[in-house]
């Protein structure tokens, strides 16, 4: 079983280097994100998704200047060390070239160990990391899609014989086909499931936290009430910051959405002023980070069934929130899903940024103002300069169903179970 990590690095761009950096990133995009010779992403086989985003110079909620930054993030197969080594081995020189336009980067020609050290020193942990397609490596996702397509073609060609048999016999015929096909040799054995020890640790952690929560409930309840009252008073006094959104900004964003199946979203916003706001936000994001694997298992982020990975980063000493996600469809549908399916949960996490529609107690209002939410989201959305997806032809639902097909190849099944399995093909 493969677990996932979210690597992030956000560093200031050297003064005067924003344009050359932009141009170089554009060159990666123009050269084909998979095979370009600067960062040939396809060869970095531990990456699910990766992106480079230039965060332009701006002012924070206090009116202080924030310089232009470069963000580079990956969703990768653990362990991190392996991912780093591979990335540096394959694309070290390109990364060196890019990051040498950033501050505090070592001088001189490419040096693998110095790059590694830089990537470790300046890496940034996401406050919240959501995994929609958990426990699958890049390779497994690809292989299971190949398997599903092969089984589909096979069943099309052998429709007559399969339909004339019982479900159990039809399943066996498919298993025999898979086992006899050298291209599908990987499917002969199942992917190892989580060990009992892993499971025990995973659920033990949750149970521990629940017990602590119950024990301290008498203290937590009054604390939360007071906290919420303070928050409410802040919300009432807060001045709404207008979102400046132009049609040209929307055009620039959607023109870059050219993939058929998946799309990405990058958004940058100022955290509202005040230490109380910052502390509340950090607590909520980190709590969500802890609970997400338990609450949002099975590929649904608060009920939204299309998100592969998402992360919330708080950068520049708590002054800005950077949100990055990879999902199926396009940004218009994606934002509508936020409003229709997960308005309250996502309001709780996003309402701490300027321009978000007015809230009460951090869940009421907010995204219920659909018009205001769309304005905010589009205004905060920024261009993703380079975006890579390793398995760009599969949706979250495809990935889950492909695993179901694969797992159905093992063990015995009753006629009913076999029928159900055949239906998933």
């Amino acid at each position, binding site marked *: 079983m493969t677990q996932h990590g979210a690597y992030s690095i956000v560093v200031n761009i050297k003064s005067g280097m924003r344009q050359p950096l932009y141009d170089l990133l554009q060159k990666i995009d123009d050269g084909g994100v998979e095979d370009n010779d600067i960062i040939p992403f396809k060869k970095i086989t531990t990456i699910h998704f990766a992106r480079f985003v230039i965060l332009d110079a701006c002012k924070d909620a206090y009116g202080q200047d924030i310089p232009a930054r470069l963000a580079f993030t990956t969703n990768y197969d653990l362990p991190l060390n392996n991912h780093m080594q591979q990335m540096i081995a394959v694309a070290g020189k390109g990364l060196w070239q890019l990051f040498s336009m950033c501050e505090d980067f070592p001088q001189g020609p490419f040096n693998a160990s110095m790059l590694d050290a830089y990537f470790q020193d300046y890496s940034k942990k996401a406050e919240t990391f959501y995994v929609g397609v958990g426990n699958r490596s890049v390779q497994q996702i690809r292989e299971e899609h190949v398997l599903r397509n092969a089984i589909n073609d096979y*069943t099309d060609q052998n429709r007559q014989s399969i339909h004339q048999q019982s479900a159990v016999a039809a399943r066996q015929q498919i298993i025999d086909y898979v086992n006899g096909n050298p291209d599908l040799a990987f499917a002969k054995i199942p992917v190892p499931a989580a060990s009992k020890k892993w499971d025990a640790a995973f659920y033990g952690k949750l149970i521990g936290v629940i017990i602590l929560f119950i024990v301290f409930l008498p203290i937590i309840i009054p604390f939360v009430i007071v906290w919420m009252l303070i928050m409410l008073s802040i919300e009432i006094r807060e001045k709404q910051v207008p979102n400046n959104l132009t049609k040209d900004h929307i*055009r620039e964003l959607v023109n870059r959405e*050219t993939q058929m199946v998946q799309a990405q979203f990058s958004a940058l916003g100022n955290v509202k002023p005040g230490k109380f706001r910052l502390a509340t936000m950090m607590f909520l994001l980190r709590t969500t980070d802890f609970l997400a694997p338990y609450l949002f298992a099975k590929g649904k982020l608060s*009920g939204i069934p299309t998100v592969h990975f998402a992360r919330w980063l708080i950068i520049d000493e708590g002054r800005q929130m950077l949100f990055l996600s990879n999902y199926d469809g*396009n940004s*218009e549908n994606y934002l509508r899903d936020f409003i229709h399916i997960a308005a309250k949960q996502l309001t709780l996490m996003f309402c701490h940024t300027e321009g978000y529609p007015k809230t009460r107690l951090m869940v009421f209002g907010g995204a219920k103002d659909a*018009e205001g939410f769309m304005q905010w989201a589009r205004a905060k959305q920024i261009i993703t300069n380079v975006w890579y997806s390793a398995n760009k032809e599969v949706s979250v639902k495809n990935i889950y169903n492909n695993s179901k097909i694969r797992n159905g190849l093992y063990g015995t099944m009753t006629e009913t179970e076999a029928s159900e399995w055949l*239906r998933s*093909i």
Partner: protein
Amino acid sequence: MQLEINDIQGLVIRGYSNLPAADFLILSVTDTTAAKKWLAAIQKDVTPGHHKPKEIAVHIAFSFEGLKQIGLDRASLDSFPIELEDGMTTRHKQQFLGDFGNSAPDNWEWGGRANEPVHILLMIYAKDAATLDARTQAYLAQLPQGGLKLLNHLGTTVLYERKEHFGFRDGISQPTIKGLSRSDSDENSVEPGEFILGYRNGYNQFTPSPYIAAAADPKNLLPQSSVNGMHDLGRNGTYVVFRQMKQDVSLFWKYMDKATQNADGSNNEPAMIKLAAQMVGRWPNGTPIVVCPDGERPHMEDDNNFDFRNSDPHGLKCPFASHIRRSNPKDSLDTDRKTSISVSNKHRILRRGRSYGPPIAATLKPIDCLNATKCDDDRGLHFICLGADIGRQFEFVQNAWINNPKFNGLYEERDAITGNHHNPQDPRTTGTFAVQHPGLRVRYTDIPEFVTIRGGAYFFMPGIKALQYLSSL
């Protein structure tokens, strides 16, 4: 809020089934001054919603370019939504709507990249062909003097039993606008602001409405806008999506025939009709297959009162990829039932389409269509739909549901009837369609495109007062 029905163009309220003859004139403005005069004269002909015309009805709508041509200022133009401004032929919209291959806007007959810009859509409905012809000819005669040029004269046809060319009863599932006299189930009743600007929509909000500076409306023809110092140009108006869809009826039935032939190569008529019905989701007479999977019933043709979730969770009656299950998924989206219905109702459209071109066989019976010998006439559907938010309604349905190969858990199935399989990233240029079974599905492959887009544009259909304002510019 009471609907100001006398200020709404009547097409929003009714589809004029009593006025079966119709002509659509696609016009461009050649002389602004003359066109404004013509507009001032013709606006008296436009049918308001409180009239129930028995003889003739006239409607008018403007493209973004059209509004510009008749002299609307830049600030007012900017207050229109990006969808109207950009139209349906930008690179992004081509991708979003899936207009590739023969349907690419480069190949259109009107409204496309190589065509003259469309400015005005004039719609004429009449009780019979003679009445229609008289009126259309009268309008055509006015055009040169009115500073207008005819780009395209789109005629229509009434087909047997109100079917479309493939032989299926069309226009059955329509949302009911709350506040009109008709009443309907809660699930099919939609807030008026979904279709008419100036009213609350499904989010209990007002859809942004275009406006003009108060100073530009000295006669106070228009009401106050919610934007300070502005008058509301959008109130009681709506947007029109017009797409000319050419239908290849012969190709359609030949595919169904070939896919279902008996072992000896002879036609299997019931199987052929059933496959087509599965792709549509209804039998030719309109009976929903999720209710009657075994065949059409005479009294079920307008039935809309069905769900998918409980009656057909595995798609065994109505396949997951069928046209009606994806153009209005009702309760079948992957959320709880209530959310699914509420989501679906945020993406409804009012359909006002009409067929054009001679039927391939007068009866429209599948076997007659299959055996027809004269097949090369131009025929199809003028797809017309109305809504207050083109992006959230028509474009969303087309992009996220109809033409999305991953819709609701699918892999590579676009709408078998209207999907486009020529996206440059498509692995092949034909479609697939799976019919679910208790065990393994039956998958039909190599489905060609039965429908080709031949033209299209987005229009703003103003309220009656806004039309008066526009003609006074």
